[in-house]
C-alpha cells in the first residue's frame, strides 16, 4: 500500500476538478492506500464549514468527513489562503487542519505519488 499526496490549488466549487480529486482520494483509501490532501488557493473553499448542499453544487463535505473517519486520510488547508478568503479557524470543517505551505512539501517527502492540481 502506498501514500498519495494530492495538492489541489485553484479548483472551483462548481467545477469538477475538486470533485475529481476527492473521488480519487476516496478510491485510493478504499484500496488501502493513505492520502494526504492539501487545499490551497481557491480550493480552501472546501474547508469552509456550513456549506449548504444544493443539487446544483457538488456537496463534498460528507465524503470528506467519511474519509477523515477512516484514519487513512489527512486534510489540511493553507492557512494564509484561507484567511485571505475570510475563513478563520472557527470556520473550518471538523477534522480539517490548517498549516503553512511547508506542510504540503513535507507530505510530499515520503509520498509514493504526488498529484499537484495546480492550475485551472
Amino acid at each position, binding site marked *: 500500500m502506498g501514500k*498519495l499526496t494530492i495538492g489541489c490549488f485553484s479548483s472551483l466549487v462548481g467545477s469538477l476538478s475538486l470533485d475529481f480529486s476527492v473521488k480519487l482520494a476516496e478510491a485510493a483509501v478504499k*484500496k488501502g492506500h493513505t492520502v494526504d490532501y492539501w487545499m490551497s488557493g481557491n480550493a480552501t473553499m472546501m474547508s469552509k464549514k456550513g456549506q449548504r448542499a444544493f443539487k446544483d453544487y457538488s456537496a463534498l463535505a460528507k465524503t470528506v468527513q467519511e474519509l477523515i473517519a477512516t484514519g487513512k486520510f489527512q486534510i489540511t488547508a493553507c492557512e494564509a489562503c484561507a484567511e485571505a478568503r475570510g475563513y478563520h479557524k472557527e470556520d473550518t470543517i471538523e477534522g480539517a487542519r490548517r498549516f503553512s505551505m511547508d506542510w504540503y512539501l513535507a507530505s510530499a517527502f515520503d509520498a509514493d505519488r504526488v498529484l499537484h492540481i495546480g492550475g485551472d
Partner: protein
Amino acid sequence: MKLGVIMSDYRTGEDVLKRLSAEKLGIIFVGNGVYHAATKEAGKTSSILEKTGNLYVLTEDLESRGFTSANLDSRVKAVTYSDVVDLIFNDYEKIVWL
C-alpha cells in the same frame, strides 16, 4: 521515467503535453479532457491520441457529459476511479495534471 499525465482540459495544455517525453507515457483523460477521446472536429480526431499507445478515459466523466463508450476512439480504454488509482500506483512513477 514512467510518466502518467492526467489531461483535464480540451482547449489548453496540448502544447505542453506534446513536448513531454518519457520511456513510458500514459494519458488519462478526465474532466473536459474527455472531449479529446470522444469527439472529432471537422472529421479529425485529436492529435493527442497519437502521442502514446497508453490512453485512458474516466468513464464517470465521459458519461457525465452525455457520451458513452460507443463515442470513444478505439485507441482509448475506459477506466473507473478505482482503475486510475491502480494506474497511478502501479504503472507510473510520476503523475502530472494538465
